């Protein structure tokens, strides 16, 4: 191994974005801080591509950091790097007059570093740190534009992220205590005997991954962020939860096997329903993420770890592309719309599993995990996905640029196109190593049909909508968050207003009376007769006792 891809590379990959982020704060560079964004994920990309399988350690760091690169990690690491790279380039074109570019760049880099970290971490502490970094730093990405909506979304995001962190901490503590080791592998191995730890961890990761009912931050935060950040959030950051589950789920997850599948499917369908009722393209896309992650959870529940990684990676690329697509569409005038829309539809179709696209491959890969009605349910979810993404594109088109001949700048469309390409193509190369299938399988007629009929069904269902244009009732973004948020803030309010215990009183009640009593006692001792009598009596008593 040469120096560049030596044992230091994983650390360099994590530290490089941080250094860039700090550099962005340098006064002279502040104005052009955004230029660091594309550069930040490059070492990580190199790492994902060129680093051999293995691990590296830094005992002085945290509680003894161990970084490891294995198959699912490498895939997701590469995905993260690519998405952030694309989003970074996109951001350069997206922000004309960026608000607080240095802060944005700084937190972008910090989030990225955390996002990469969760993919690499092999010890609990590092994982926790990275997870926290990605969770909390992303907050600044969410609230970047400073609007009331963004701040509100940010608040929900933060509260839930904290809850997630707390759950994670408890889960990790319990796990470490059960395993008596900080190694993630050891903890995972012992989790089947520690159901509480497992539950906490699943809830914590599920929260990040948009698991129902902890998904509500996602449809709020993703649309609120600037588009490149949304892409990173929905494409890469939610995968932190997925990698967590991949790393920590034990062989035998007990009840959670079923639980994950059920919750996953609820999410898969619930996300569709809730998403269809949205008015904002990015919100719809966010619900789509909830839905897709539901599927991934179900896959994980079914025990197909590597397949889940593959599915998640594909979703990452495609969803990031879709989010960027919304941005591209917004910069596109009527004239360039058709071919842009055509390109934008590709990742949507891919996610829905249209034949020959990457999505079809990953859908095929997860199929063996399910049987019976589950198989049907998973397959049918593609219909929902298709409908949802169609609505997203439709809403995005409505948000296109006003100028008829507006064209997206190269900095916008190039990364977008690149992501689409990766999303469509990568599964072809990886299918064999991440599943039991070969790419040839999806070319079979049966599987082509499997991929096609949900789309046809979707088209069938969509037709009346397109024709009749019924008034779709709107659902607030984040659905459950509205009542829950109200309840939470009421509780907080009550806590703050609890009567304060009064401070201790130094002046004792009745002190004045006590003073008077003492003074009276003193005055009673003063008269000479009394003192004299006492003295005489004491002399007698003492003499008597001494003689005794």
């Amino acid at each position, binding site marked *: 191994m040469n120096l560049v891809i030596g044992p230091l590379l994983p650390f360099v990959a994590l530290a490089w974005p941080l250094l860039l982020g700090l550099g962005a704060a340098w006064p002279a560079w502040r104005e052009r801080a955004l230029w660091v964004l594309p550069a930040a994920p490059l070492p990580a990309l190199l790492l994902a591509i060129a680093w051999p399988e293995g691990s590296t350690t830094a005992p002085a760091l945290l509680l003894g950091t161990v970084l490891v690169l294995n198959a699912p990690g490498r895939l997701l690491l590469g995905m993260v790097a690519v998405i952030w790279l694309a989003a970074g380039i996109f951001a350069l074109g997206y922000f004309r007059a960026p608000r607080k570019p240095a802060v944005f760049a700084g937190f972008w880099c910090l989030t990225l570093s955390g996002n990469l970290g969760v993919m690499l971490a092999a010890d609990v502490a590092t994982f926790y740190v990275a997870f926290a970094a990605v969770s909390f730093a992303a907050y600044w990405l969410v609230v970047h534009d400073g609007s009331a909506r963004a701040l509100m979304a940010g608040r929900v995001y933060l509260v839930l992220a904290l809850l997630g962190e707390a759950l994670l901490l408890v889960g990790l503590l319990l796990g470490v205590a059960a395993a008596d080791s900080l190694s993630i592998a050891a903890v995972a191995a012992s989790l089947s005997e520690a159901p509480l730890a497992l539950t906490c961890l699943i809830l914590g990761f599920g929260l990040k991954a948009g698991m129902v009912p902890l998904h509500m931050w996602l449809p709020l935060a993703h649309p609120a962020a600037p588009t490149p950040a949304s892409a990173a959030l929905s494409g890469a950051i939610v995968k932190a939860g997925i990698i967590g589950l991949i790393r920590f789920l034990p062989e035998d997850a007990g009840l959670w096997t079923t639980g994950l599948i059920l919750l996953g499917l609820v999410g898969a369908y619930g996300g569709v329903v809730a998403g269809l009722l949205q008015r904002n393209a990015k919100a719809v896309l966010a619900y789509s993420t909830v839905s897709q992650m539901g599927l991934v959870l179900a896959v994980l529940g079914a025990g197909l770890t590597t397949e889940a990684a593959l599915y998640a990676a594909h979703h990452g690329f495609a969803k990031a592309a879709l989010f960027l697509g919304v941005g591209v569409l917004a910069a596109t005038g009527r004239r360039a719309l058709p071919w842009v829309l055509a390109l934008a539809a590709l990742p949507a179709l891919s996610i829905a599993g249209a034949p020959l696209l990457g999505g079809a491959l990953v859908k095929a890969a997860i199929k063996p995990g399910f049987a019976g009605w589950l198989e049907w349910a998973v397959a049918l979810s593609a219909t929902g996905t298709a409908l949802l993404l169609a609505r997203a594109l439709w809403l995005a088109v409505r948000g296109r640029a006003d100028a008829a001949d507006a064209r997206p700048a190269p900095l916008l469309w190039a990364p977008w196109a690149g992501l689409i390409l990766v999303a469509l193509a990568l599964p072809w190369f990886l299918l064999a190593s991440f599943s039991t299938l070969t790419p040839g399988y999806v070319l079979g007629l049966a599987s082509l049909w499997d991929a096609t009929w949900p789309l046809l069904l979707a088209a069938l269902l969509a037709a009346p909508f397109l024709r009749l244009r019924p008034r779709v009732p709107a659902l607030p973004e984040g659905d459950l968050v509205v009542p829950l948020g109200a309840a939470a803030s009421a509780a907080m309010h009550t806590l703050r207003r609890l009567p304060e215990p009064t401070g201790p009183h130094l002046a004792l009640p009745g002190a004045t009376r*006590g003073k008077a009593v003492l003074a009276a006692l003193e005055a009673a*001792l003063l008269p000479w007769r009394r*003192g004299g009598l006492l*003295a005489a009596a*004491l002399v007698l008593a003492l003499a008597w*006792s*001494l003689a005794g």
Partner: protein
Amino acid sequence: MTTLLLSLPVALPLLAALLAVAASRQAAGLAMATGFLVLGLSVWLAFEVAAAGPITIALGGWEAPLGIVLRADGLGAGFLVVSAMVMAVVLVAAQPSFEDQGQESRAGFAFWPLALLLFAGLNTAFLSRDLFNLFVALELLTLSAIALVAIEGKAGSVTAALRYMVFALLGSVLFLLGAALAYAAHATLDIGLLAQVELGWPMAAALALMTMGLAIKTALFPFHAWLPPAHAGAPAPASAMLSALVPKASFVILLRLWFDLAPELASPLLLAVLGGLGAVAVIHGSLLAIGQDRLKLIIAYSTVAQLGYLFLVFPLAGGAGGAQPWSAGAWTAASFHAFAHMLAKAAMFLAAGLFLRAVGHDRLEGLRGLARAMPIACFAFGLSAISLMGLPLSGGFTAKYLLLTSAFASGQWGWGLVLVAGGLLAAIYLFRPLNLMFSKEGAAASLTPVPRWEQVLPLLLALAAVLLGLFSAGPFAFLQIGRPGAAAEGLLP
């Protein structure tokens, strides 16, 4: 040499007092010189005692029982040194108030001889082994003290002096009765000789009389009522002597009675009465101090309380407990406590005198903001407060620690609780003035300036009280010299 060392601490103040009467112009200088000379001699004597053990001289060459014997043991020499320290500083501190400005004045004439005679009486009381001689010394001491109380000449101080006088007369006549009975029964007045004979009923009566007489002179509760107005009414340097030094003389004699003369005679009732009254004094004096609104009265009531601690030595180390392992600790603690109190209380009264001079009155309210105006005096006040509260590191703490340890080791918890409660109450009454000193709001706009050197004097004493706690091993060992029944080497290694 030893003859001179033992006699000069008594003779020098006497001579200086006589000369001060004859040549009152030079009185202040004479007194200050005497103070330091006696201090030096006492220290020298202490070194001799430390090197060679107790030193005894027979005055005029006449041994007891015919003559009077002076003896410097650890206890006596210790008290001698500490009281000389206090006296030396107090005499310097008194100079601005009592030095004659050109023409002889009444107070300027009277103060110096009285102070010096008080000094002589004190030193005699610490050294003498003869009961009747002790009586005369106590009279010299007390009458000088009473005259000092009255030196302001106001109706209040005359009343206080008269009240003091009445108590003092009762105390001395009881003591004299006891001494007379002792001689009648055993034809000797020497404590050492009396300790060797078998004591009977007349001696029991004698001891009861002497004990009560001395207790009254030491202002033990409930015979303390004279003390606060007397000590608070005198001028500050006089208050310092009265509060710090005078009660210690009778207490030392009391110690000698019950640890030298007749340790085995002490009945449980006697120990309980002395300890109990001491305990009540601690609580009662402290509570009353809390209730006062004048600084000097607070300090004076604090003396009532602090003297109460001294009496805890009787139940803790006296009687049958005398042979117990903890008794050395308790016995020494009493002396430590007395030392610490002497230094701290003198410092406190001197500081209070400076505050009074600066503000014009000694009501507590006047103390506002003094921490800024008179930092050194306030610091001295604070340091002495620490010692009086028994907080570490100070002589007061060492004493409290030893007493507490004895109390717990001997299973007499009650006394321990009194000690702890007394410390807390002391904190309450002493932090009231301290708090005010640190209160900027409502501070007096103009103060009479007090020179820095005067503020340093109480600080010296307060520092000595603190240093006594830091270097207490030497004094502890020193106090054991000539201690009767000094078999036990303290509680534990």
